[in-house]
């Protein structure tokens, strides 16, 4: 059966690069067609946790039954648009996060929540008041009160090519 190629731009926030077919036995090759390493995994993939895929490298799934996401690394954050959670955020549940201040944040900004292996990048959908940021989607990880929140000022960008089909 014919395969289908798709090119997907990849940035700091995870983006779905492959959706398994609903019929047949799906297979997929994920190829890093960009200039920098991208990180492959689930919906919460980050540069610190995902499977590194260097440029011109490919990852083959003979039975690709799961959705695949990718994110670029090299995230840098603002030194001024920064705050902390004032209440814990629950993975998979909390999209309206409580913060100390929303000064210097704006709707549409990418923000990094947390640090280390469970840091994640999301998009500010709206700012309902001076102590809350509403993200476009719920956070993936649990974050304790006090966790850092900062606007992403830079990140690597890349392109992932997927070639998918069924047999």
């Amino acid at each position, binding site marked *: 059966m014919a395969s289908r190629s798709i090119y997907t731009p990849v940035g700091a926030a995870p983006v779905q690069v492959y959706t398994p077919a609903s019929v047949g036995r799906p297979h997929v090759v994920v190829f890093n067609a960009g200039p920098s390493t991208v990180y492959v995994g*689930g919906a919460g993939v980050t540069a610190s946790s995902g*499977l590194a895929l260097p440029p*011109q490298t490919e990852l*083959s799934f003979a039975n690709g039954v799961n959705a*695949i996401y990718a994110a670029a690394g090299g995230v840098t954050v603002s030194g001024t648009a920064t705050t902390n959670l004032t209440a814990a955020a629950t993975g998979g549940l909390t999209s309206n996060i409580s913060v100390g201040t929303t000064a210097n944040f704006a709707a549409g900004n990418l923000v990094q929540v947390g640090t280390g292996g469970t840091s994640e990048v999301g998009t500010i959908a709206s700012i309902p008041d001076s102590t809350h940021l509403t993200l476009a989607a719920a956070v993936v990880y649990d974050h304790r009160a006090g966790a850092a929140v900062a606007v992403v000022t830079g990140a690597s960008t890349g392109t992932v090519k997927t070639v998918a089909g069924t047999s």
Partner: protein
Amino acid sequence: MAVITNVAIPVSGSGVLLVSAPGDVYDLVISNNAGAVVFLGTSSRVSSSNGCPIPNGQSIKLTGQGAGSTTDLYVTVASGAVSGTVGYVLTTPR
């Protein structure tokens, strides 16, 4: 001539070290025989949220220039009540 390493690692639970910094390899094939889906990543905190899923009984193959990773690779098993192995075959330059 390339050097081939073929290893099977018993796995259960989360954050099991699979292979230490495979680095400069030609090919890396990881086969899941754990009895449940496993998630592959570069952090011991790899999870179903951030890891690369490998269904039970399936394998993935990493190929290309500089394939591999400069950091360790870890797996987390979706279900803790399994007792199987995750194997890998890596081909390195001699």
